[in-house]
Structures are given as structure tokens and as C-alpha cells.
């Protein structure tokens, strides 16, 4: 089994937001929730970089560690998923998450946030693969169909990479070696406790 990761090559991201749109469309994400978003750092200044960020499916995920009802689980492909049936909407995962991935369908006043929603790495949830109920609650399950997350699959500059960590790290290393520069694998140190050194 692979160890699935995301890698955003910020030197290639052109801030087109197609990954955001693709994610919303593929997963029928509830209104107001963005499982993936593109953020530009130092916008308009020399050296600005855009990073597409979603749940990084951390090693030893903080969200899973702090969940008071233990509704998170990690798949054999190291994708971090959760059960909306067990989630109580307490908001603890969203205090713990370094990447702002967990979101709630309601504002959360009076503690009524609703069930948490986040990127599933296009892997659905605990329900039967590609069942209607799985799609309704969690969105697409492309991994079960042998496909990678749509955000990365359709990235026009191949800035956003998804797949086995070692393979995408090697692709990134080769790119950095060939072009002579790279602003690093954003979030990797925080999510996986490792960086890609070329």
C-alpha cells in the first residue's frame, strides 16, 4: 500500500483556483465549505508564491489525536478520514489542525456547528465504496476507482501532486534539480516531519 501525500510545487502554481473548483464539483462540497483553497503569500511583491492547501493527511494526525469521540481513522493508504455519524461537531480538530482543513456547515454559535467536513483525498468515508450514502456524506471515492484526487489530476501546471509520498517527492526533486530552484514542499515538515532535500 502506498503512503498517499499531497505536494504543492509553489514555483509552478499559477493561482488559477481550478483545484478548488474541481474539488467542489467532484465532491458536491456543502455551500460555504472549501476543502481546498489557494493562498498567495506576499501577493504583488517580488518572490510571491501561491500554495494550494487542503488536508495534508498528516502522519500521526493531530485532529485524530484530539478528537474527543475518536471519529477519525487512517486508511491503508494513510489517508486520514472521519465518520460523520460519530462526529459531534465540537471543533477540537479545527483547533489542532495546522492547515485549517476541518470546517463546519454552520457558523457554530451556541455550539451548533454541525458535522465536520474536510478533504477526503477523494476517498469517501466509512460507508461502502462509491455508495450513494457515501457520496452524499463525504463526496467522491476516486481512490476506490483507481484514480487520484481530482484537484491534483487536473492541475494544469502539475503544480499540485498527489500520490505515493516517495514517488511525488522524487518528481519534485527531479524538477528542482533540472530548473535549479525550488521553494520547498509546503507543509511537509509540519505534516510528515520531513522535508525534501535535493
Amino acid at each position, binding site marked *: 500500500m502506498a503512503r498517499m501525500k499531497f505536494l504543492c510545487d509553489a514555483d509552478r502554481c499559477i493561482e488559477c483556483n481550478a483545484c478548488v473548483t474541481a474539488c467542489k464539483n467532484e465532491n458536491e462540497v456543502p455551500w460555504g465549505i472549501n476543502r481546498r483553497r489557494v493562498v498567495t503569500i506576499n501577493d504583488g511583491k517580488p518572490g510571491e508564491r501561491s500554495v494550494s492547501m487542503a488536508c495534508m493527511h498528516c502522519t500521526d494526525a493531530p485532529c485524530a489525536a484530539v478528537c474527543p469521540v475518536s471519529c477519525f481513522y487512517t486508511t491503508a493508504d494513510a489517508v486520514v478520514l472521519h465518520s460523520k455519524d460519530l462526529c459531534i461537531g465540537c471543533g477540537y480538530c479545527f483547533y489542532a489542525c495546522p492547515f*485549517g482543513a476541518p470546517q463546519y456547515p454552520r457558523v457554530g454559535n451556541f455550539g451548533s456547528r454541525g458535522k465536520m467536513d474536510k478533504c477526503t483525498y477523494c476517498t469517501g468515508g466509512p460507508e461502502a465504496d462509491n455508495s450513494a450514502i457515501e457520496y452524499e456524506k463525504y463526496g467522491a471515492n476516486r481512490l476506490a476507482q483507481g484514480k487520484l484526487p481530482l484537484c491534483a489530476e487536473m492541475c494544469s501546471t502539475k503544480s499540485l501532486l498527489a500520490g505515493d509520498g516517495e514517488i511525488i517527492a522524487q518528481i519534485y526533486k527531479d524538477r528542482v534539480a533540472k530548473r535549479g530552484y525550488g521553494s520547498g514542499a*509546503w507543509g511537509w515538515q509540519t505534516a510528515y516531519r520531513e522535508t525534501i532535500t535535493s
Partner: protein
Amino acid sequence: MAVCTRVRLVLIAVALLVFAAAAAPVAAQQPSSVDPNAAAVQEQQLLEQLNRIQGLGTIPDTKSYVIEQPMGRVWRGFHEVWLPWIGGIAVLGMLAVLIIFYLWRGMVRIESGRSGINIVRFSAFERFVHWMTATCFIILALSGLNITFGKHVLLPLIGPSAFSSWSLAAKYAHSLLSFAFTLGVVLIFLMWLSGNILNRVDIQWLKRGGGMVGHDHPPAYRFNAGQKMIYWIVVLGGAAVAVTGYLLMFPFYGTNIADMQIAQGVHGVVAVLFIAVMLAHIYIGTIGMEGAFEAMGEGTVDLNWAKEHHSLWVEQEQARTGAATMQGQRSAMPAE
């Protein structure tokens, strides 16, 4: 025609020269070994500066513009390691101390026995406020402890589905009862403030250990120094848990994720210490002292109890209501 052609050639040559002259400085600014990454923002550098990375996005949700905040890991360490230890030691430690104390000291008796005369200690309103706050506190405490300890204690016993249903109900109870609890704390603050200002008698009371050891009965007004400590712990602790709780209940109203992590930390630590103190309060109000529970139960206490534990208050009460009334009550008792 020949002149015309020559003029055109000259014009083209001049134009080329002007263009070349203008282009020269631009070319000079672009050396062949340019590094477009030289000024690029570096993740590690940004994290070291602010411990969080924020930029600009295009979706309306401005909160999503923060892309990385690794201090969530610190909060996780607090919530998963420190808080359970602090809470476990505080709550179980207090229980252990109380059990040992009870086995050693037993119930503090009314030494001079019951007089049979009752005097009013708490009005119906005071008792209502106390029990409203107390009921809310117990439910808030259990539902709060469930968030930290439930998955270790209860989840293995009843299974994930039942535990989630209970936790969801507990979460709603925790959020909604907080309003009655906060109201109770405010009323407690107002109605008992005058009796809980520290004075010289309290120093004496504390020096004599409140009479908990041996058969000492240091004088006290309506509230002794121990009760005053409980009062201020309830008022200040209650204010702390209420403020931090409402910050968490209304996310992003003047807070960001980092502030909410701090709010949760304060809320959790104050709450577990609060629970430990309230265990001691419950102990002394029930099995710890004879004649204490009826003060909050029926609202009256035995005169001898009051004389032993609140001698100065009894004097005040007798001066206020007139000692004659007391005497009258006493003479109603069978003489000799």
C-alpha cells in the same frame, strides 16, 4: 524616389539606434544567471518569523487565508497529555484526600449537641440560586470531563455509537446550561458579596486551621475564611470558565485559532481545578459536617451549630432580630 528611399533608410537606422539605446539598460539589469527563486518566500523562514503562514485568497472565507499554523501541535500536546494529567491528579487527588480525611477525622459533630432551635441561614431565593448553579455545575462538569476523559474511560465500555450519541447530548447540555450557570455565578457574586469581603477575623480563622483539626472553633461572621475562599473561587473561576467558554462557543468573534487554543487551555485547567475544589465543598456540606447540609437544604441551621461555626454571625443575628425572640424560642423549650 531615390531621396525618399534614402530618407526612409536613415529613419529606420535612427529608430534602431534609439531602440537599442533604450533597450541597453534593460538588458544590463538581466544578467544571464538570474535566479527567479532568490526572493521567493520560504516556508521555514515564515514559520520562524510568525509561527504561522498567512496570505491572500480569492474565496470569501478570510479565515482560510491562514495556510499553516503548527502551534496546533502544542495545543494537542496540552490537550492530550497535560490536561488529562492535571485533571486526573486534581480530581482523583482531591477525592483521595477527602476519603483519607474522612477516615481520619470523621464527621465534624455539633459538639454541644442540637439545641432544637433553628435559625434562618439562607432565604428561599439564595437556596434557589445555589441549587440552580450547583445542578448546572454538576452537568457541566460531567459533560466537560467527558470531552477529556470520556474516550479513555467510557468509549471502551459502551462503544463508539452510544458514546457519540451521549457526547453529542452532553455537548448541547454543556453549551445551553452554561447560560443558567453564568447567571447563577453572577447572582452568587451579587447576593453574597457583602459577606465575603476578607477581614481580620479570617486571618485568625486561617491561623487556627478553621478548627478542622481537633475541637477548635475559631470565630467567624456569616461566612468563614474557608467559605470566602470557595466564594471567590466560584466567582473568579466561574467568570474564567464563562468568558473562555463563550469565546469558544462563538468562534472568530474577536478570536483566531491561536486565541481559541489559549481559551480552551484556560477553560480546561480552570474547570478541572474548579471541580476539585467543588468536591471539597460538597464534602464539607454533606458528610463532612453535621448540621451543615440543612443550611442549603431547609435554609435553617441549629443554633448550636451556628454558635460553634459562625459565632460572630449569631451575635449579629441576635442583635438584629432582637435577642428576645431567641430567648422566647428558648423558653418555649421545656425548662430544667
